[in-house]
């Protein structure tokens, strides 16, 4: 059980001492080359040491674009032409209100002919990379709990974020950046909960025109020139070595010493990672000048540097009224950046190893209160909605699952949030039932006691 210099930034022995830490099942734990005592599993979570997952997988990172507010599936990725027949007609069995055909048009796009809404002209250009899931369902169509469910697999209780589980499963591939970074969004979407806090998402306060040294806390030093700080760090290192000699190479001391070197590198590397000015003019134009464009470009730069999970909130989808103009605007904000992200990842050969995941917390009603006009909108609806995935080993240019002819209920291949989470874990190489953590006398996992991998979308 030798220490691997430069890798474990978490003291392994400390991990052993803490009975709470268990990287999963017999298999997962032993894969890490550690003893497993099942039934009371201890394992070296390895801290943030990069790990090879137990199952073959392409994806090494996930970018989650969370469409907060719950986008209408009917106006984005689940066209329902039949609804034209029910325009302005009472539909009491579909939640009341009158039938509301989508004001958007749908065009077969790409070689696959995937039907794309006129709200997403740019995204249509990468339709062949998209795997649209049209059969998502959720029980509680209320923003708070549903968004939490989407991020943590739990409506109410405090559970770790899917990003934390991803980092827990994969470790970090970059020793100078946090492995799970969020660019906005609620604190509970990035929480590590009972996982060790190193798996918590780090919030980067990034915006297009914000100085990069303000993006992470304490990234910037206002008190010493870099050369002087290097000298100072050499001194710290010397002091630590002498101290360490007195404790015969204690791992936690070594780990802490090493973390200072990481921090030093992080100052330059994080600033570099968040600095989109380092990109070519062409690339910057690809993503567009908007804040969202900058965020997705940064997401790509982070993943490129080994960050495992990037979370971006791209909200504004709660279109209770005036959906045509409002959704056009909201979709417009993400259309070019998302299309650029996919094209850019592909161009760089990174799409295969990166899952791009877009979606909101539920869907919207097939009807509108009153009558169909420019002011019409759609209310909350949980029985059916859409998400899409691209890259990372999912099939492109396809739509999975189906709703009924009006888009009210799922009639084919329903996908719950637990199923989606299970699939994401599978894409990064984990059986979701085996990536567990012992807490409070129980082995917890992202998918609670549920979830089935959606094999139909895995290439």
């Amino acid at each position, binding site marked *: 059980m030798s220490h691997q210099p430069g890798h474990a930034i978490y003291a392994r022995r400390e991990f052993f001492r803490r009975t709470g830490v268990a990287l999963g099942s*017999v298999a997962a734990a032993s894969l890490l080359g550690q003893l497993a005592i099942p039934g009371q599993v201890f394992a070296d979570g390895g801290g943030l040491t990069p790990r090879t997952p137990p199952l073959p997988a392409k994806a090494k990172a996930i970018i989650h674009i969370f469409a907060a507010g719950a986008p209408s599936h009917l106006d984005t990725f689940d066209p329902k032409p039949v609804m034209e027949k029910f325009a302005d007609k009472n539909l009491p069995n579909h939640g009341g209100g009158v039938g509301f055909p989508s004001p958007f048009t749908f065009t077969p796009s790409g070689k696959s002919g995937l039907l794309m809404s006129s709200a997403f002209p740019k995204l249509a250009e990468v339709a062949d990379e998209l795997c649209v899931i049209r059969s998502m369902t959720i029980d509680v169509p209320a923003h708070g709990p549903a968004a939490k469910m989407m991020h943590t697999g739990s409506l109410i209780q405090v559970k770790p974020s899917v990003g934390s589980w991803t980092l827990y499963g994969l470790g970090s591939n970059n020793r100078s950046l946090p492995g799970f970074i969020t660019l906005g969004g609620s604190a509970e979407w990035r929480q590590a909960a009972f996982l060790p806090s190193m798996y918590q998402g780090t919030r980067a306060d990034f915006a297009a025109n914000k100085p990069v040294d303000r993006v992470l806390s*304490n990234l910037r030093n206002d008190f010493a020139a870099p050369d002087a700080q290097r000298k100072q760090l050499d001194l710290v290192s010397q002091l630590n070595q002498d101290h360490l000699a007195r*404790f015969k190479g204690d791992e936690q001391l070594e780990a*802490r010493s090493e973390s*200072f070197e990481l921090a030093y590198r992080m100052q330059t590397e994080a600033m570099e990672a968040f600095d989109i000015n380092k990109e070519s003019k062409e690339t910057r134009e690809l993503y567009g000048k908007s804040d969202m464009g900058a965020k997705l470009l940064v997401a790509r730069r982070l993943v490129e540097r080994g960050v495992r999970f990037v979370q971006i909130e791209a909200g504004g989808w709660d279109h209770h009224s005036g959906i045509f103009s409002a959704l056009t605007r909201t979709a417009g904000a993400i259309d070019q950046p998302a299309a650029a992200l996919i094209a850019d990842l592909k161009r760089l050969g990174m799409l295969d190893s990166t899952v791009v995941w877009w979606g909101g917390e539920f869907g919207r009603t097939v009807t509108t209160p009153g009558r169909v006009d420019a002011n019409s909108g759609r209310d909350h609806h949980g029985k059916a909605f859409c998400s899409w995935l691209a890259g990372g080993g999912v099939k492109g240019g396809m739509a999975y699952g189906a709703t009924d002819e009006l888009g009210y209920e799922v009639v084919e291949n329903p996908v719950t949030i637990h199923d989606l989470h299970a699939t994401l874990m599978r894409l990064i190489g984990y059986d979701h039932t085996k990536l567990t953590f012992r807490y409070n006398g129980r082995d917890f996992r992202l998918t609670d006691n549920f979830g089935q991998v959606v094999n139909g979308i895995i290439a």
Partner: protein
Amino acid sequence: MNPLRRGSLALLFAAGALTAADSEGVAFFEKNIRPLFIDHCLKCHDGTQNKTKGGLTLDTRSGWEKGGDSGPAIVPGQPDKSLLYQVLAFTHAEIQMPPKKEGGKLADEKIAAVRQWISIGAPDPRDGKHTKLTGLSDEARAHWAYQPVQSPAVPEIKDPWIRNEIDAFVLTKLRANGMQPNPLAAKEVLLRRVTYDLIGLPPTTDEINAFVADKSPTAFATVVERLLASPHYGERWGRHWLDSARYSDTIGLKSNGGKYRYEDYRLRSAWTYRDYVVQAFNSDKPWNDFLVEQLAADQLPDIKPGDPRLAALGFITVGKRFDNPDDIIDERIDTVSKAMLGVTVSCSRCHDHKFDPIPTADYYALHGVFNNIEESYDLPEVVQIADAAQVADYRAKLATLTEQNRTAFYGVMRKRLGDFQDRAEGYLRLAVINGRSPERLQIAEAYGLHPENRDEIREVLGALQLRNEHPVVGPYARLSRIPEDQFAEKAPAALVAALNDKKNPVNPLVAEVLRGLKPRTLAEIARVYAILFAKAAAEAPAHLDSLFTPGQPAPSTDAALAELITFPYPLPDADDVVTSDQQMASFQKIALENKTIGELKFTAINHLRLTHPGSPGWALTVVDKAKANDSYVYIRGEKNKKGPVVPRSFLEVLSGGTRKPFTQGSGRLELARAIADRANPLTARVAVNRAWMHHVGAGFVTTPDDLGVMSEKPAHRELFDWLTARFVADGWSMKSLHRRILLSATYQQSAASIAAFEAKDPDNRLLWRANLRRLDMEAIRDSLVLLGGRLDRTVGGQPVNISDEPYSYRRTIYGFVDRLGLSDLMVQFDFADPEMPNSRRTNTTVPQQALFFLNSPMAADAARALMTRAEVTAAASDEARVQALYRILYQRGPSAQEITLALGFITEAGKPEYTRTKPATKPGAPKDNADKNKYAGLTNLGTMVERTPLKPWEMYAQALICANEFVYVN
């Protein structure tokens, strides 16, 4: 390497750690083997289904013991001789299972799990009677922690190393394992260790000198007494309990959809509970009393109004709130059971506990207790402020806000009532139309109820409450239930019935206009109401003026008219809502329901109470409901699936066979006394285990909030019991417990590592050395502040912002804790998550911590302040300066080599190429920091840290702060 091969190797290796008798073994079966049997074997080998292929059944233990046609299936302990294993591993010459059509050979890890299971003796709890896993077995009840605390004899052993009885236990066990303990640590080391342990701060140079000079045998005991008498002791140990009590200054529920009563997610004075805890430790309040007060201080026989002990009830109320009341109850059950008893009762909310002897019925026995309490509106003041000027200022500001609140509230309500009276017909008609019908839009438009006011319309419709019994709209409600096509025919009779209903009298003015009508449609009735409300509107101004203006006598308006004027919002008289608490009780419900809460001043009032130095402190109390009811069991945790009613009572397994239902109110006091009963096997153990953990670095049981069946076995069970028995015999005195532990050689030995023992017992479970420990977040921050010479030693009071500039120099325990989002500093340094009891801190090492030491203004500030300390500025030479810094920071003198290193750095860092260059970023005022939204809306007074380069000596001081020695205690 093939990962699966490594997997099975690991399993083989681990096998020795388990035996069949262990509950871990059963747990292993439940987790790995039972599901495997169900998935892969029972289809053909299930006795209950008469499926006995090859004569073998695998649904019970006796099934495989007896075996099938080929003999016993398993030889416990010997997988290679077990037919079952051979068959599954495909090593048997003839039989291979499962058959191909059932999926063929199992995955390697499953086969490995079977091997493991057989190796440890094939533990299998299935005796043919129990079909599902619960903790209700005799085996679970026999778990050591549920047995009475014993008072084992102290081992008879003589050795000069031994200081007290603890050492006799430890040394005996070490010797039995061929090991020996370390000699005592050096005095400087010991003083640093015990000072951080007891007060969370480092010792001063004077204290070191005094201790080193004191050659008497009681020198260390003297130190311990000094520290136990320090007011900082309670701050240190109180914080440990606050981790267990999931202390937070917020309720963790910000947008509550109008359901929750709190005006602000920040509690107005959670800090009185925090201070109560600190004082309880400082006064060495007996642990049993401490627990009782936290559950039921208000019900103690000797409690008086304004008694400071009432603040103890914050234990219940500083928890997280949820929209669902059952979740709040669950949160409280979870906290009580983990923090006080070290069992995980909330696992039994939906099913009998899987491992511990806690049936679902016991959960609902406690549910009954917490379901019968409510939070008080009228909170007792338990902390008074002495500064008269501040108090006067606070009262004046509160009066202004309260008055503004009243004006705003009545202003909103006047407008809202006027709006209703003007559009009553539209509202009444909308109220009876299906929510999404197209007709609705037409009506809304016709009456000027515009879609953009959708939320407001919805709220008014909600307030209408079309109930048959309602004195104003009851008749309309009744008529609305008549089908449209029968309306003309049935309405007159229905109307007569409504107006003659003696039980639910109709408002006389409403009755007057409706009597004798023969309406053909409901809309006609709505029109009649509209005319009536229009008349009421004409009388409204005078009535409302009188109602809304304080000091005016109650309006003389006819009661029936008054009822119409204030429909659908019955409003309190301004004279009855003089204080902000009365306003809370009266306005808030209405304002929350009609979404006008944002226009009121409740948040501002709360902010004033939370932050104004003249504001008193309130105890966040609960009271029992007037009539207590038992709860029924929610089947599978679902409220609508009612199981049997269970009497309010304590957990059966901890009641020593004498459980009685609670009879006094909610039963809180009875529950508290049952928890604090000396016969309860868990309560004292939990307290002792945690104290041991904080002193030694690891508890006897390593999971301090769960001593149940799933916990690791204590390495020193006899010592643990002995110490627990002494704790109770000493009157539950925490300070006596500290003395006992600290005066042992076990505690005082050095942390030196010995390779041979390291190999034998790497986790030091047998205690052959002291543990090397890293300072926690509070100790780190407090040390930084203290070493800069600026610690504000005030004990208690309102919370401060400990994370943002301008920095506070209060101790970290006084930092505001927001469970909705801990500050970066708290998260990065493993602060206990206040979501639930977390008595043990995690201990992570991430680069963000290093960035804090290297770059944060707090670290630079501390380094600068350090160089201004008198000991440092008075130093006659550079060498003496280095010595002073070492004494302050590390409580020891530097070696010659360390001095050389220091002086080398000073020379080097003083060279022009370093001093000339500027920091990477431009120095200057940290503007955008100042503008930032402060943590939880709290800002300290004070100045920002100056953004100028550190001088070489300051750089050096900062390096000493960054170094490991600063944050480790050995």
